């Protein structure tokens, strides 16, 4: 245990000034934005996508396992918070938190049968969860079944929604940072590189995967809750839309899977791109996402962040020679 704390402290001590400076400037911009940005909802949705792809990245990037059912966390988080707001009239902030917790619970439930599955088997299992959740919510009368339901107008508070979004987005990035740099992250790295070896030295892979999925589900659930708070309407096709998983994956891949800032970069670029494409050419949007996923895998498997990093390394080598 003592060695664990030592590792954590050591790694956190290495926060570089430049990283800190960029984070502070970015955060200051986001906090001041409501006073000078006209279309606050654009920033809101960019941050929402950052959280969704960062939470996908937490699990896939750190454990090396693909969760093709990521959108179920978004959908369930949305449903839990919307139900609490519409029926129990609780504070929207608590509802967002409850949405995250609801999805964490779901993540735990999903982990029970799947945490011990290796590689492709896990991916296959998650692929089917989406379908199952859609069917459940589409036929469940207590949650409005197929028509879904609408939030009361009194809940629409653009500025408060935006600030909550900023807090959730910032904490998702911070948690990704902590996960990456802590001893917990080292264990995940061992699992990603060779699970059998990691297990043989006493790393309980199923436990680590479960905890990571729960954290990933927590943030994706809050993203869903926040999105519903902003959109005010929820129904099964929009809550469990596979396109959301596809988008989150392409954002994380484009930015750089496993990197902390990848989803911020990928999310911002792709949101702007698909916003533009979605408005002008409805069906092309998905084609572009497909091309991006395939293209990133073939050309820059470590994404934009990885490419930049390699560029720097290359420049440094050049200088030394």
């Amino acid at each position, binding site marked *: 245990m003592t060695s664990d704390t030592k590792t954590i402290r050591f790694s956190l001590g290495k926060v570089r000034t430049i990283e800190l400076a960029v984070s502070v400037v970015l955060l200051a911009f986001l906090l001041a934005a409501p006073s000078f940005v006209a279309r606050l909802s654009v920033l809101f949705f960019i941050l929402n996508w950052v959280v969704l792809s960062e939470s996908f990245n937490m699990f896939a990037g750190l454990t090396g396992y693909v969760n093709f059912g990521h959108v179920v966390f978004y959908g369930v988080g949305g449903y839990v918070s919307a139900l609490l707001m519409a029926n129990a009239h609780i504070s929207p902030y608590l509802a967002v938190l409850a949405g995250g917790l609801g999805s964490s619970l779901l993540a735990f439930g999903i982990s029970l049968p799947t945490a011990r599955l290796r590689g492709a088997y896990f991916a296959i299992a998650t692929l089917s969860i989406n379908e199952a959740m859609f069917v459940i919510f589409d036929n469940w009368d207590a949650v409005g079944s197929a028509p879904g339901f609408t939030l009361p107008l009194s809940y629409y508070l653009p500025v408060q929604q935006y600030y909550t979004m900023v807090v959730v987005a910032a904490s998702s990035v911070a948690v990704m940072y902590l996960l990456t740099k802590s001893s917990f992250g080292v264990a995940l790295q061992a699992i990603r590189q060779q699970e059998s070896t990691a297990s043989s030295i006493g790393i309980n892979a199923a436990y680590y995967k479960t905890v990571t999925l729960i954290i990933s589900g927590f943030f994706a659930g809050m993203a869903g809750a926040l999105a519903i708070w902003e959109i005010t309407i929820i129904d099964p096709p929009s809550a469990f839309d596979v396109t959301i998983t596809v988008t989150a994956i392409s954002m994380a891949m484009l930015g750089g899977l496993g990197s902390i800032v990848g989803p911020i970069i990928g999310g911002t670029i792709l949101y702007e791109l698909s916003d533009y494409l979605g408005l002008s050419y409805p069906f092309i949007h998905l084609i572009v*996402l497909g091309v991006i996923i395939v293209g990133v895998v*073939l050309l820059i498997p470590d994404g934009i962040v990885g490419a930049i990093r390699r560029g720097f390394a290359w420049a440094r080598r050049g200088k030394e020679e």
Partner: protein
Amino acid sequence: MIVAELIVLGLAYGLLFGVLALGLTLVWGVMKVVNIAHGDFVTVGAYSSYWLFVLGGVHPIISLLFTIPFGFGLGVLVYLALVRRVTHAPELMSLFLTFGLSTLISSLLLYFYSPTQRSVDVTFPSINGFGLVLPGNAAIAAAYAVLVAVLLRIFLTRTFWGKAIRAVTEDSHSALLMGINPERVSLLSFGIGVAIASSVGSIVMLLQAVQPTVGGDFTLLSFVIVVLGGLGSPIGALLGGVVVGVVDNVASLYIPAAATPAIGFIILLIVLVLRPSGIMGAKTD
């Protein structure tokens, strides 16, 4: 009596989807790539047959003469351009690649042919026997599945390249030492896998309506079957297909129609928890 008829019907559907899963497991065995776009190649085959039927009046069975070589060519192309480059990368990458490919195929079909449901009006006379009635189209599907399974079996056991595929599946390193080019074997098996998927698409046109995003359902179905039978086990795939087909059809009697997509998922979870290596227990790792 209804139950018995549903069992026979499930058997017919199950054989066809078992053969579809055979294509998936063949590719997995040789290059350890799970092709998430497998079901989308079914959609491509189905759309080819649909347009051949609508524009050229070509019977879906005759269009197999097109969809089989077309599927093989497409598979070879996709292998050379894309899949070849991730066979040695972490498994994650091939999952992402084929997932992206699946998105690409379904969205292209959506773009060009709209989300409209497409179906062809072709009916074969139904078959009566033992007091049961089997729709002719389902019988054709079963017959095609058996034909493909038998041909594949002959190919894999009696020909050089078939044996090469089995050798690489067994142990690709030793196969390489024996002078077998694993690259070429991968190319061949990916071509065959896609050819199977695309030809199953032609037959699917006889059984149901098709729209661009239906591929995901076929992929999932093949996965359920393959997991049930054990990844990499051909006989397991056929058995798994029959089990899923029968359970799916019989269960539709007892549970609401809307919940049927969940059946495959439930079967999958039960199998994954109880026996991750499948019925036939092909080895993993």
